[in-house]
């Protein structure tokens, strides 16, 4: 990405932060908290997720067969099925249906798939008046805007801005002001339009192959009117919406509202087996009972491929088809909470999973526009009701974008800055895939290991040089490193050197031996937390080794440099092997590296290698917790004074691994009064907050956390992750400690 496009992107984000950020933040955070509360009430939540996942896996596996079965069932029921290859094909068919019935007006209930094919524009060009009847969609239609959220499309608009819009556009006798007035006004306006409708269009959240039943998840009742009033019903759905049986709807009924807007269930779950047996309501004939005569209805199910069958064949994108469009991944995403779908979205879809949808439907170029906004924090993984590895889809698409990129004109600089640029490592199986390489900014951050080694060897000179004005300006201009950030200070003496050279020795003949993994940050920059970890473990009777080890591959993976990350993973696995053979446990300070060992390596290493490392690796405080549970004496640690308090921000990936609780338990056992933040992410997220184009977004995300930490007024602020430490340092003006630095015994 060039300097100009970085600056343009920063300006676009700044504009959205100013104009839409407040409404988006309030609404998405409300939905997100609602999700936490609602799923907590569900005793069998995890079982339902597993069940939902299994249904989608099976359905996508057998999709062609299920589409054939559904077609047969719907046709036996008296409907018509049309499988459209692409948007144009679908639009042509729908327009023909309208024209065939002499339709002047189609009313629609909310459907993202119909947004995807842009059917409104197409029908209007063919002379059909199209009216959105979902209140949020109607606001957008009146304002000529696009959805900023897949479930609540007008989430970026406040009540005041909707009132201004309606008052200006419709000039009502009494100006509209309250939500109640706005809703009743819209209801009346839309009822008028529904009364004169010839065709009703809906989407479908799910379709049962065995009965031809469709499920629609709504709250307003507009979908019900859309289906009931006119005699022609057109349902538009992606082919991936088909499930085998109508009983398969059940886990989704229980999950979809909770996951999305935090409602246990929405007001209306329509379960329709069209053509429905309800009489039509012909308002042009107001005095004839609706029950007079036979019910005559036409039903057209338009199933849309538009890239989906190819996604099904794509091992990395296939999971996208399991998505039920609940919006959990949007609401839980710290970046989305700040900017919404107008920045974090493509042509149609928004939020974390949108990268998969847009890459599959529109292509890589569209996905590339917003894919960087996924920082891989992983908070969406546990939020997703079908457990889609959304960060991985983002990483894969980033990798593909990198390989198709064209920043080759900067190669002369890259050679100097990042010698192991993606695709150039001889040991890497994938070799030089494709023509492209990641852009310079990604290569710089992706090769943090090289930077750290050089930086440490030449510290403190390297720190002075990197943070001096001219260097910062150069880094910003050439590589997009924001000059408002201080770069991490490299320590001349690494953790590994300190450990090798120290006089002290650990416990003799210990029961447990660990390798304390010297991650790049603990080894080169935040060395004190590493020393505190050694003191803590030894005080609890553990034998500790801190051998030199390769990086985990987290930095390149974050930049979508999968081949480089895989190379690192293989090297590290090889280096750790002898220790695992000798029954050492692996203790990890940096949560994002532990997440590599436990989660990401499943995608990078052979199954056995990953499983052994995952099973024997522990987050530092998780390990301390285990030692204390097994009889180690807490008095060997540094404990709290009377009423000493802590404000703690757990790392995003640490929370996804369900490891926040262990740190809380240890701090509490050490006597601290602990308050935690509920911010999903600090905003820094690895290198994200260093990037010039995202600096302001990262700081906006961070402010949510900063406010929470300030409010506690605690004696200590603690954070487990490196990027959280840097971000909180920038927000509060003082770098937080790692929890282990608080509990470690004195020297």
């Amino acid at each position: 990405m060039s300097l100009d496009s970085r600056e343009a992107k920063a300006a676009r984000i700044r504009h959205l932060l100013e104009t839409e950020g407040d409404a988006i933040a309030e609404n998405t955070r409300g939905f997100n908290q609602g999700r936490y509360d609602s799923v907590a009430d569900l005793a069998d939540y995890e079982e339902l997720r597993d069940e939902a996942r299994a249904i989608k896996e099976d359905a996508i596996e057998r999709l062609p067969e299920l589409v054939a079965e559904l077609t047969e069932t719907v046709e036996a029921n008296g409907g018509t099925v049309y499988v459209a290859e692409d948007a144009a094909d679908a639009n042509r068919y729908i327009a023909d249906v309208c024209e065939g019935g002499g339709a002047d007006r189609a009313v629609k209930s909310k459907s993202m798939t119909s947004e995807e094919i842009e059917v409104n524009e197409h029908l209007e060009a063919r002379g059909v008046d199209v009216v959105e009847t979902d209140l949020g969609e109607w606001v957008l239609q009146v304002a000529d805007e696009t959805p900023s959220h897949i479930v609540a499309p007008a989430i970026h608009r406040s009540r005041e801005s909707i009132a201004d819009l309606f008052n200006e556009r419709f000039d009502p006798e009494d100006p509209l002001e309250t939500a109640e007035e706005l809703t009743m006004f819209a209801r009346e306006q839309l009822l008028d339009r529904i009364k004169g409708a010839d065709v009703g269009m809906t989407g479908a959240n799910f379709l049962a192959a065995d009965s031809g039943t469709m499920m629609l998840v709504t709250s307003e009742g507009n979908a019900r009117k859309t289906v009931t009033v006119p005699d022609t019903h057109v349902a538009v759905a992606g082919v991936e919406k088909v499930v085998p049986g109508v009983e398969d709807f059940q886990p989704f009924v229980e999950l979809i509202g909770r996951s999305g807007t935090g409602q246990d269930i929405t007001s209306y779950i329509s379960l329709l087996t069209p053509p429905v047996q309800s009489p039509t309501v012909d308002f042009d004939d107001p005095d004839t009972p609706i029950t007079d005569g036979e019910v005559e209805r036409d039903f057209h199910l338009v199933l849309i491929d538009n890239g989906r069958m190819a996604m099904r064949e794509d091992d990395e994108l296939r999971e996208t088809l399991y998505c039920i469009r609940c919006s959990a991944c949007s609401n839980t995403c710290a970046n989305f909470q700040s900017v919404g779908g107008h920045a974090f979205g493509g042509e149609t879809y928004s939020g974390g999973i949108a990268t998969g949808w847009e890459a599959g439907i529109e292509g890589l170029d569209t996905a590339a526009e917003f894919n960087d906004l996924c920082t891989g924090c992983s908070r969406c993984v546990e939020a997703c009701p079908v457990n889609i590895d959304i960060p991985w889809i983002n990483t894969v698409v980033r990798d593909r974008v990198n390989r198709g990129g064209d920043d080759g004109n900067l190669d002369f600089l890259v050679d100097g800055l990042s010698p192991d640029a993606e695709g150039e490592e001889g040991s890497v199986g994938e070799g030089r895939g494709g023509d492209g390489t990641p852009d310079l900014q990604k290569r710089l951050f992706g090769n943090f290991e090289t930077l750290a080694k050089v930086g440490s060897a030449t510290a403190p000179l390297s720190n002075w040089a990197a943070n001096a004005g001219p260097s910062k300006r150069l880094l910003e201009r050439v590589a997009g490193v924001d000059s408002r950030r201080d770069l991490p200070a490299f320590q001349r003496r690494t953790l590994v050197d300190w450990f090798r050279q120290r006089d002290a020795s650990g416990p003799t003949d210990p029961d447990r031996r660990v390798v304390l993994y010297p991650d790049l940050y603990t080894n080169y920059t935040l060395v004190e937390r590493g020393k505190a970890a050694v003191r803590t473990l030894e005080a609890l009777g553990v034998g500790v080794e801190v051998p030199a080890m390769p990086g985990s591959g987290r930095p390149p993976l974050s930049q979508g440099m999968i081949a480089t990350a895989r190379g690192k993973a293989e090297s590290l696995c090889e280096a750790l092997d002898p220790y695992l053979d000798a029954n050492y446990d692996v203790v990890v300070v940096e949560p994002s590296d532990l997440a590599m060992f436990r989660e990401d390596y499943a995608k990078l290493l052979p199954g056995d290698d990953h499983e052994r490392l995952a099973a024997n690796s522990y987050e530092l405080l998780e390990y301390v917790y285990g030692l204390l549970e097994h009889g180690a004496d807490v008095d060997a640690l540094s404990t709290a004074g009377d009423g000493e308090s802590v404000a703690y921000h757990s790392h995003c990936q640490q929370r996804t691994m369900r490891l926040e609780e262990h740190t809380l338990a240890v701090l509490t056992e050490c006597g601290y009064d602990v308050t935690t933040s509920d911010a999903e992410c600090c905003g820094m997220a690895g290198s994200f907050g260093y990037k010039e184009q995202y600096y302001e977004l990262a700081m906006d995300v961070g402010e949510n956390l900063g406010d929470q930490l300030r409010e506690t007024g605690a004696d200590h602020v603690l954070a487990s992750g490196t990027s959280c430490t840097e971000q909180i340092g920038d927000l509060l003006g003082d770098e937080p400690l790692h929890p282990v630095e608080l509990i470690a015994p004195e020297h």
Partner: protein
Amino acid sequence: MTAASSEAYDQFAATAAEYGVELTRVPADEATEAIADLTEDPAVGTPLPWDGVGLPEGVSTDPTPAALDGAVTGVTGATLAVADYGSVFLPGTPAGAEPVSLFVDRHVFVLRERDVVPDMPAAFDRLGDRFREERASGILATGPSATADMGALVQGAHGPKAVYGVVVP
């Protein structure tokens, strides 16, 4: 009445109440009066599918579009309720139960207590064959119509603003 069904009823009543849905539990022969008490005129309805439970006078069936448009109350049968969600299943019928329960401000559903099932799996067990064999359609409705699209939660977005239930044995 079994203990199990009473337990399911109590849970249904409690959950429905969270959505503002009040239930009136009466013997079958008092249902008509209970419905009448909840009805504001003009009212439309569809015949209730059980013997011995009738609509009050003044609730007209076979409504015209004009009657639907002008009605304040709609009375229809609910053939299933899900206790832990406070939801009822409102079958769409050729008699027009769907528009009758939708175009009004007040919806009154009539339910048999024996049709209250504890949870969603039990509900789908009951409904599955009806979809497959009878080509059934219906709405699993929980509380009144609602929207938050205009900046705050408002009831009665396109459908009823208030929902009441009359439950017979």
